């Protein structure tokens, strides 16, 4: 495939695309999806659980729980994932002697960042539940925990699902940043192949297609989960 591309500088660029390299090395590139999934999937689970806990803490009567939640969210929402990765993977071993694998470091960094975002999504969902429901449940003798377990959380979870899906997609997309600490996911493999065959546009396009497929598949799965909704907010 031969393309003549007009550049902003008004110069004609002759670029010979050779997507044939993807037929030969596509399987190797696609192999990176396995690592991408096993980095993002645990991160998504931890993100969700930690997000719920932080959201519950943010609505607690105890000031120190609310404070801890606010500090966590403000800190990990503002810290760039790249900085977190560098700190966890390279600085922590120097300070503590604990050295983690690139995948483990990535899971921790992505989970901390994702949990801060998920907390805000859940908090929005929890605050959307009218206070009258809580009052009604308490008047029937429900404890605060039972109100949260049976009344508030189930409704809030499904109400939050669309924005939670966005958070999860952000987590998956952030996996590409882990190329920095050499997690052998799709982007890292694209970089390796680029060094070898000098075809960055072809290999990065291939990587983009694979990530789109992964994220699109995940979004589809979440939409199916949304359809399982048993509780409609009243």
């Amino acid at each position, binding site marked *: 495939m031969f393309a003549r591309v007009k550049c902003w500088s008004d110069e004609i660029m002759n670029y*010979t695309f050779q997507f044939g390299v993807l037929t030969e090395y596509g399987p*190797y590139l696609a192999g990176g999806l396995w690592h991408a999934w096993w980095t993002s999937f645990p991160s998504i689970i931890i993100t969700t659980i930690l997000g719920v806990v932080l959201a519950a803490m943010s609505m607690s009567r105890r000031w120190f729980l609310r404070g801890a939640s606010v500090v966590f969210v403000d800190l990990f929402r503002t810290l760039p994932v790249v900085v977190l990765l560098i700190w966890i993977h*390279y600085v922590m071993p120097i300070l503590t002697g604990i050295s983690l694998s690139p995948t483990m470091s990535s899971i921790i960094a992505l989970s901390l960042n994702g949990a801060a975002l998920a907390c805000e999504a859940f908090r929005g969902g929890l605050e959307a539940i009218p206070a009258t429901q809580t009052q009604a449940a308490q008047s029937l003798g429900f404890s605060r925990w039972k109100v949260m377990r049976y009344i508030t959380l189930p409704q809030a979870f499904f109400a939050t699902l669309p924005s939670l899906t966005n958070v999860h997609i952000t987590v998956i997309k952030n996996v590409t940043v882990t190329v920095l600490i050499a997690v052998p996911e799709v982007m890292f*493999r694209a*970089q390796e192949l680029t060094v070898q065959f000098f075809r960055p546009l072809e290999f990065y396009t291939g990587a983009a297609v694979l990530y789109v497929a992964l994220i699109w598949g995940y979004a589809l799965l979440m939409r199916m989960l949304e359809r399982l909704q048993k509780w409609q907010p009243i």
Partner: protein
Amino acid sequence: MLRTIANALASAAVAAVVALSASGASAGPTLDRIISEKKLVVGVAPWNKFVLLNPKTSQYEGLIVDDIRNLEAMTGIKVELVNTTWSGLVAGLQAGKWDVIMSGLGATPERATAVAFGEAFGYLSSTAMVRADSPVRTFADLDKEGSVLSVVSGTAAQQYAQRTFKKAKVTPLSDTGAAVLEVMQGRSTAYIGDSVSNELRAQERPTELRNIKFASDQTEWTSMNHAVRYADLDLLVFLDTYVRSMKLRGWYRNLAEKWNLPPELAVGPR
């Protein structure tokens, strides 16, 4: 009598110094562990013809890999390769994730403030990569007002370009792919990089790119070295002994030939 006592004391002192220095010649903790466990952990970053994970065989290949396998065979120390990125090499060494960097890292005084470099086992010069249809032919053609040179940020080539090209504008980019694409898209006049990689790129894409070599007094040479933490200088002594021996045996010249690399890679500037 006094002289006899003084001589005896002096002899005793010399004997004590010799004995102490002999007992003090034990290796540091890292080298001790490497020798006792027979395992050396090495950080490497992808570099065509030097260190690459072959996607078809899942085996590492290249000049440096052959050298590492030879070190393994000669010393009986098993080498575990850890594949990382160029930006992560030094950080991983400092964090203790590997014992040594064996990726042909160029030794510069600036970098030597962070890591200890060993004896050079290879040499590279800087060259310019231009579009195949570019009118640029010489060093003088590049060093002009309006000329834009792309380099990879943090490399020896960036330092060389900023020191040498007085009139051209030097643009640092994050990686080689991006820097070469700047040239192909006409945003940069040339990409300044190492002679070996640029030659390979030009051979790979002859209709799109051309490699320009500079005269010996215009180019700048960089060496390829192993690097360790300053706390592990004894490990460097061990590795340097190997490198020196192999240089004397013509090993690196043979490797350059095997991997179809220029002979000056093994001998450096003349």
